[in-house]
Structure formats: structure tokens, C-alpha cells
């Protein structure tokens, strides 16, 4: 069996790639995808812990995270469409005013 620490390391690497994506990219859509990547990295460690502790609670948490992610994507993309309609850009450096 693959040891737990391998899964946790893979999860840490994927999470860090997501953090890099949020920090270095200016396209709000790609930043949003990086956030999805971070959520998935955490899901991987939930499932790994649930496997190695012989408990299904971790998988239930993954289920809840997926439902929250679906709601988050729907609302987030609606906000992005709203911003694009007002400012005609998806570059976060140009979106610097709370008042349109």
C-alpha cells in the first residue's frame, strides 16, 4: 500500500501550485481555477486520511466540499460576468474600485 505521507505530499504540492496560480496570474478566471485546484488538493488529503484511519467521515466532508464548490463556482462566475459587463476586463489589476 502507498504510504499516507505520499498522498499528503502530493496534496501539499497541488495546494501550493494553486497558491502560486492565485499569486502570479492576473486573469480572474485562472485565479478562480487555481482556487478550485486548492479545494481539490484538500479533498485528496481528506480521502487519504479517511482511508488510513478506516473511517468514512473524510469522504462525507469531501461530498460537502464538492457541494460548496458547486455553489461557489455558480456565484463566483456570476460575479465575474457582472464585473466584465461593467469594466470589460478580467484583469484584476484594473478592477481596483469598489464603486463601478
Amino acid at each position: 500500500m502507498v504510504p499516507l505521507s505520499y498522498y499528503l505530499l502530493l496534496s501539499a504540492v497541488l495546494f501550493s501550485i494553486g497558491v502560486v496560480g492565485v499569486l502570479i496570474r492576473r486573469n480572474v478566471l485562472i485565479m478562480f481555477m487555481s482556487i478550485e485546484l486548492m479545494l481539490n488538493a484538500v479533498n485528496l488529503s481528506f480521502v487519504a486520511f479517511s482511508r488510513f484511519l478506516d473511517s468514512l467521515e473524510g469522504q462525507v466532508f469531501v461530498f460537502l466540499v464538492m457541494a460548496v464548490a458547486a455553489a461557489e463556482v455558480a456565484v463566483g462566475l456570476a460575479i465575474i460576468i457582472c464585473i466584465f459587463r461593467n469594466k470589460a476586463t478580467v484583469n484584476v489589476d484594473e478592477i481596483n474600485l469598489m464603486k463601478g
Partner: protein
Amino acid sequence: MELVLFVIFGAVAVASAIMVIVSRNAVVSALFLILTFFCLAGLYVLLNAQFIAALQIIVYAGAIMVLFVFVVMLLRTGKEARRGYRLIFQKSIGMIFVVLFLLLLGSITLMVAVTGMRGPYTAEAVRNIGNTQAFASVLFTDYLYPFEIISVLLLVGIIGAVVLAKKKR
């Protein structure tokens, strides 16, 4: 065999995750993100979580990424500017801190041993009653209340998305 599959899925997942954040085109990023999700589904199967693997493909690679690709194509954003960051040294300082963060996480995962109360669902027990049935018996007994709350959250998400994306009159 399991290790080989783990290495293949893990390497493809990391490589496509890197492609997500380096590609200049948002559609290419979205497609590589779908590949990452498929690799994660493979890893879930290796971890005896077949139901979660199916959900990963249906909900993430299906529903969520279709929404992403739809919005990317709707907005027609074009290529991103390479230069002109508002914050100076944003990339380099960000990379330094992420590397430090990764070292911290890696040292924690390698040094700390997992000690916890072990549950009743060993691989053998889950195989006997079936993964989906075992999962459902936990979800609909101990976690019924969060499950109901999730339905309210999804309703709020639907209404919020419609209200936000509606054209102002």
C-alpha cells in the same frame, strides 16, 4: 502496482496543474484542469473511494468545468498582458513564500505520524457492504443535518447566480 499507478496519476496531476497556471489561454487552462480532476479521480479509486471518484468526474469534471468553459468562451478575454503588474516584485516574492510554505507542509507531513482513533470501516468491511452503501449509511445518519443545510446552500447559490448575472433594467 499500486505505487506505479500512484506515481502515474500523481505526476500527470502535478504536470497538468502546472500547465493550468502557466498557460496564457484560459480555455487551455480549463482543459488541463479537467485532466487534473480525472487524475484525482483515479487516485480516489486507489484509495477505495469509488463513490467519491464518480462524483469527482460527474460534478467537477462535468458540471463545474462546463460552467467554467462556458464563461471563458462567453467573455472572449483574449491574451493576458505579460507585463504591467500593479505590485512590484509580486511574482518573485510570491514564489519565495510559496516555496517556504511547501517546505513547511512537506516537513509536517514527513515528520508527524498519524495517530487517531480508527473507525469501523476497514477496507475489508467496506468491500463487504459496498462503498456507496457504507458512505450513505454514514451520510444519512451522523451527517444528515449538514446534508440538509447543503440543500439550502445550493438553493441560495442558484438564486444568487441568477440575480447577479441578470441584466439590469
